[in-house]
């Protein structure tokens, strides 16, 4: 029980810090700041779990189980970091669903739906995010990939290539 409870408690602590900070001031580089919060709590958690106090809890909280606690915490953080990409910026799908919800019973026509969407917001926003996250850099007026950007894209596309998937949707 202590493994599960400690893993969740650590994540909730990090999540509470994240929500509190974001309510006070939304950081410019949100993804990076969130990763820093998770990392700091991880370091604190590892320190606590490896301390003599944690070891003295009992045989049911062996070193391997404390490692499992850390794994559980890291799993929650990783899943939340991936979900956060959908939370920090409205996607086209989220925007469309919101518009369809706004007109629930009456329904909304396709043309009206497309007219209501603020075009040039999704792509522009994503482009700004690429710059902010150092995935691309501005060389004069031209955007060029950074080493980090190449590595991220290579990982994703290589995995897809190995699975025999090459075409991409929108």
């Amino acid at each position, binding site marked *: 029980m202590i493994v599960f409870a400690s893993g969740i408690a650590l994540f909730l602590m990090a999540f509470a810090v994240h929500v509190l900070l974001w309510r006070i001031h939304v950081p410019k580089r949100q993804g990076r700041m969130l990763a820093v919060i998770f990392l700091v709590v991880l370091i604190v958690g590892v320190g606590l779990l490896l301390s003599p106090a944690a070891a003295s809890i009992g045989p049911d909280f062996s070193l391997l189980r404390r490692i499992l606690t850390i*794994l559980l915490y890291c799993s929650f953080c*990783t899943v939340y970091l991936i979900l956060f990409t959908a*939370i920090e910026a409205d996607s086209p799908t989220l925007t469309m669903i919101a518009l369809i919800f706004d007109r629930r019973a009456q329904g909304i026509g396709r043309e009206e739906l497309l007219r209501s969407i603020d075009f040039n917001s999704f792509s522009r926003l994503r482009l700004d995010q*690429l710059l902010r996250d150092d995935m691309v850099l501005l060389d004069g007026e031209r955007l060029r990939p950074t080493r980090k950007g190449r590595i991220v894209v290579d990982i994703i596309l290589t995995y897809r290539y190995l699975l025999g998937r090459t075409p991409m949707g929108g």
Partner: protein
Amino acid sequence: MTREGTADLLLITAPFAGFVINILGQFILTRLMRLRLLSSIFVAFTAGGIACFVALAIALFIHAQPMLDKLALSASVLLVYSAAGFVSFAVINLGETSLRIRMMRLILENPDGLTAAEILTRYNDALIVSVRLRRMVDNRQVTVSGDALYPRRSVLILAVGGIWFLQWLTYGGRQGRLLHDWAKYLIQR
């Protein structure tokens, strides 16, 4: 090594073993057996889950402990395995739908780089929205009657509610109203 030590080692290795089988399964199913991507992801995840569950069951069998502890340990191990599965799914899905990855690909294909205007012209919002809308209709995630679109109870609607909740929690603002409407819709139907 004691029985408790062996059991704990199995608890740690169970999600890793499941993950390795999941990934290998995806390659075997898509490359050798030519299964469709979505089916291969589902079948491989299930196969990995079974491997993880077997290792977990052995660990719990060789080290007797109270039922509540068994349940909590099982939940921990299965959550770690599921998270690893979610990461692999996200990596595949990002290459399929992520605007940022698609833009990055465009930039990488042009060694001299591209201007922001060139990128926005080649990958514009109208195209993205029409592709997503068609996908939502094809996957029956919204109801279509004549030309009008209506919300429909689907996994997507549930997921969107979860995202709105997290957005409201993190940023506050208009998501509160959307969340209220969403909850009312689910209760009414």
